[in-house]
């Protein structure tokens, strides 16, 4: 049997898709340095952005695999990651150019100069941390059932087997209760 480091792209993809989620680490190790070198050398990204964008592109790739949006590889994993990562770098570079400090006249209206996306981002960050806090307060059973259902898109029958429910109906009722609980936790944050 091949070791993890010798797995080719298709095998790695198939095994991540089959549920070996820890293999995402191998994928990260394999493609991280070439991407960072490329992004800093050719796309003029700073290293911090290159690493961040690479992590985001791995997350997008992983989400597409586990959600079933990506069912087969139409190009190498590296091509896929580079394509996503590149777009993110372009956006980061554009944001950085917008944020670059400029010398302004004291009499000018500072409000006109403010990039409103910064405030939107702060709002987003705040909402994101509220969401993460709500999710962390949810019990294990609820967290599992909702994650399997909506993130990994398991069919109800598979959730029943995986989590040991008595029937698909029991899974559905539990899921609805968990949804309500999650909403309450979020609104109370």
């Amino acid at each position, binding site marked *: 049997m091949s070791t993890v480091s010798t797995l080719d792209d298709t095998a790695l993809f198939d095994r991540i898709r089959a549920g070996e989620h820890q293999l*995402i*680490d191998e994928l*990260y*190790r*394999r*493609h*991280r*340095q*070439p*991407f*960072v070198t*490329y992004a800093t050398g*050719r796309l003029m990204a700073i*290293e*911090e952005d290159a*690493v961040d964008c690479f*992590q*985001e592109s*791995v*997350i997008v790739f*992983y*989400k597409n695999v586990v959600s079933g949006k990506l069912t087969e*590889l*139409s*190009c*190498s994993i*590296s*091509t*896929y990651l*580079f*394509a*996503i990562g*590149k*777009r993110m770098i*372009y956006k980061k570079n554009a944001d950085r150019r917008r944020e670059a400090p400029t010398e302004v006249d004291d009499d000018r209206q500072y409000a006109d100069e403010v990039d409103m996306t910064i405030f939107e981002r702060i709002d987003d960050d705040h909402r*994101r941390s509220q*969401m*993460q806090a*709500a*999710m*962390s307060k949810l019990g294990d059973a609820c967290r599992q059932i*909702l*994650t399997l*259902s*909506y*993130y990994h*898109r398991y069919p109800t029958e598979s959730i029943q087997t995986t989590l040991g429910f008595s029937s698909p*109906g029991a899974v*559905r*009722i539990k*899921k*609805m209760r968990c*949804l*309500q609980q*999650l*909403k309450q936790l*979020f609104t109370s944050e």
Partner: protein
Amino acid sequence: MEALEKNQIDIDRYLMGEMPQDEAEQFVLRMETDGELADQLADTRLAIDIIDTAEDGLLKDRLAALEQEEFGESSSQSPNLRVLVNTEKAETKKEAKVIQMNPLRRYFSIASSVLLFLAAAWFLLRPSSLSNQDLFAENFAPYTNSEVLDRGSADDRQTAYFAYQSGDYDQAYELLSNLPQEAGNQFFTAQAALATDRAEEALDLLTALAADINFPLQEESEWHLALAHLQLDEREAAQAILREISRDNTHSRQRDATVLLTKF
């Protein structure tokens, strides 16, 4: 509870894209009159958002930990080092001195700046005499394939991509053309074709790839499709595609397309 349960099944199918088109349309109409259903859908959307955010956050933390563990030293400077570097810069700044310029040298300096400006203006504003082939050559660079390959492998795919990475585009074109007709292979076949004056072949491949919105290199395919038209001296077709790209603010080649359009 039964009605809510039934609604939840429909909502899940709708949100997961599992509902046929006509049923989805009916479902949307139903929501306009059924406020409870609309609320339940909004709650589910919110929950999915929360779950996605939380799971993404966990994965991001995991990757950040891996980054720190395995690439920590090279990936970022420690805060202390950053302070040190900034202090050094500050010190350098402090030592800078203002040297007064001799008045005669100042006049020469102004005159040479004006001349330089005029020369640059002439260079930028002169009518373009670049041919389609010049513009193609100026803008085309085979897309980087960064895959880690096994140099000695006898595998057809590895051999084909190794030829591509080595810059042997003639051989790469032959070998890539014989690989399974997957989008990724087709894209690099088209790249090798453009690199070896086979624009017709590239055009066929890129036309299909540029229309495939699920292909991660769809935007690159559009850009190279415009270049393929240029190589074929089909300037109007190239311009039409470039105009589309330059209008799209999220397109990764927007800037390249806009610059190229100014050169026609």
